[in-house]
């Protein structure tokens, strides 16, 4: 074993590790550090303020609104997306050309830029000439204000998120369903087990790792929602759709309160971190029966 052989693996992983350290690991610590200062980005001096930024944040009415918006958005998006996707997967889980076509169609929004989706849905949800109001008009309902009313704006954003994520989630579920060994289904049908029993006692437990995966992935994604808000509502009307990442963005890049924005970043980091740890705990316990 020459020195070259010993050093070779380090040389091979070095570029990747350097990139990760510079642009992912170090920034985390830098953000924690910045959260302890009062700084406006241009001034040469940073003033140390300890945990004052966090105290201010928790006392801030707007920030509490932002936290509650983000939580409501996340809970609604995750339950609707995961639940509906499971139903769709059970319905569409078959291998035929037609089924493949339907699966492809519901998946397609997932690869479209969020910019396009946001603009498209702003237009569909236009209160005057939008297609959605036309459709609900056909069904005999009153026109809705969608994004322009604080009562419906957040739910409208949830709708867009569900529309975008449903197909992807359903296809992950279908992949999960197809990984269940066929003899288990056969055994169930030999036992003349009722469809509901087969579902609740067999399919659901076997699918639980997939369910947990999707719930956590969807939660982590929803907690960081930004694009749809930046393009469709800019946090309005009256703060009804401002969420964490949008809040950080505004405080960092519009008001230049770097310490304050970093502190809210640290709070988001804690939330995402907890979710990630839960996910890995559950994953390592392998929550289904083998």
């Amino acid at each position: 074993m020459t020195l070259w052989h010993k050093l070779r693996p380090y040389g091979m992983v070095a570029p990747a590790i350097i990139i990760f350290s510079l642009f992912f690991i170090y920034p985390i610590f830098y953000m924690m550090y910045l959260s302890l200062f009062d700084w406006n980005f241009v001034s040469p001096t940073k003033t140390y303020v300890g945990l004052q930024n966090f105290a201010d944040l928790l006392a801030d009415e707007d920030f509490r609104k932002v936290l509650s918006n983000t939580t409501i958005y996340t809970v609604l998006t995750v339950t609707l997306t995961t639940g509906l996707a499971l139903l769709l997967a059970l319905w569409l889980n078959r291998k035929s050309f037609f089924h493949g076509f339907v699966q492809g169609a519901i998946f397609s929004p997932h690869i479209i830029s969020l910019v396009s989706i946001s603009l498209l849905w702003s237009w569909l949800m236009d209160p005057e000439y939008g297609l959605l109001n036309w459709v609900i008009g056909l069904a005999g309902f009153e026109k809705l204000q969608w994004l322009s009313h604080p009562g419906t704006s957040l739910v409208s954003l949830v709708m867009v998120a569900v529309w975008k994520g449903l197909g992807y989630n359903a296809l992950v579920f279908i992949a999960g369903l197809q990984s269940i060994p066929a003899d288990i289904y056969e055994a169930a049908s030999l036992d003349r087990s009722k469809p509901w029993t087969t579902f609740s006692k067999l399919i659901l437990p076997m699918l639980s790792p997939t369910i947990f995966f999707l719930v956590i992935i969807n939660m982590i994604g929803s907690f960081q929602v930004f694009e749809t808000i930046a393009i469709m509502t800019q946090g309005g009307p009256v703060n009804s759709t401002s969420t964490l990442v949008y809040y950080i963005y505004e405080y960092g890049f519009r008001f230049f309160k770097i310490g304050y924005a970093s502190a809210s970043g640290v709070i988001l980091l804690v939330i995402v971190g907890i979710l990630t740890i839960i996910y890995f705990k559950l994953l390592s316990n392998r929550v289904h029966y083998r």
Partner: protein
Amino acid sequence: MLKAVNRTIGSASIGTAAEGKRADVRSGKAVLRKALRAVLQVINVAGMLGLVLVFAMPFVWMISTSLKTLPETMIFPPVWIPENFVWQNYADAWNTGPFLSYFVNSVVIAVGILILQMLTIIPASFAFARYKFKGSGFLFGIVMVTLMIPAQLIFLPVYLELSAFKLLNTHLGLILPFASSAFGIFLLRQAFMQISDELIEAARLDQAAEWKIIVQIMVPMVKPVLVTFALFSFIAHWNDYFWPLVMTTNETARTLPLGIAKIRDVEGVATWNTLMAGNLILVAPILVVFFLSQRQIIKAFVYNGVK
């Protein structure tokens, strides 16, 4: 089903009057069941078509709007097929900003990221999969932690970093943070681990240089995973709005998604025809690629979910 029908036919032909009656009831039931099944089948197919409608209609509407005149977008109830196709909308959208530059930037950045990712993830994942070395656990830990950190979380400190390096508003600034991919290393490492030892040993006995073994033997064997990852990476960065938005302050390095989002600021809020035309410029290439390699793309995204 067939058995039940046979049985009813059989018993009807040889049975007594009473039995015949029972058979009539049974065959009636069978017919009913058949009809019910047919109805269910129709509902099933209709439901699936409805589902396709929910997901395809918005895109059809986008195309339709992009070809309308402005007054035509304001007809209520809406018209689906414009009276005259106004191709001018596409030119209008294209002329709201330096679109050629947006387009070139989008290509340069997405391709640049992809090339650098290939150069960094192939050796790294091979080393993690195939060599034993001190600290490999710790170093792979860094990869796993990175996999968990979303860009949305760290944009502020990275912005300050890039600004210190004078890399804001440059292609390099938009490429460098993604020059490697934790997800890519994770995927590729698994693929390399599945290749049998004998194959490598045989190549080593032939005195082939290690880099030659990697490039000429190992990489071709993991090609499907590489293609999968490349599709995933290219689509993600082609579509990205957040990162270029945050890391640029002027037009020099801005990409298509930013240009499309800006049409509204230039043209005013309600010019939906121009907006949808611009939107289509962004969406069309991705949709075309999707129709051409749907299977591969779905695999690329879903694989991430199943592993």
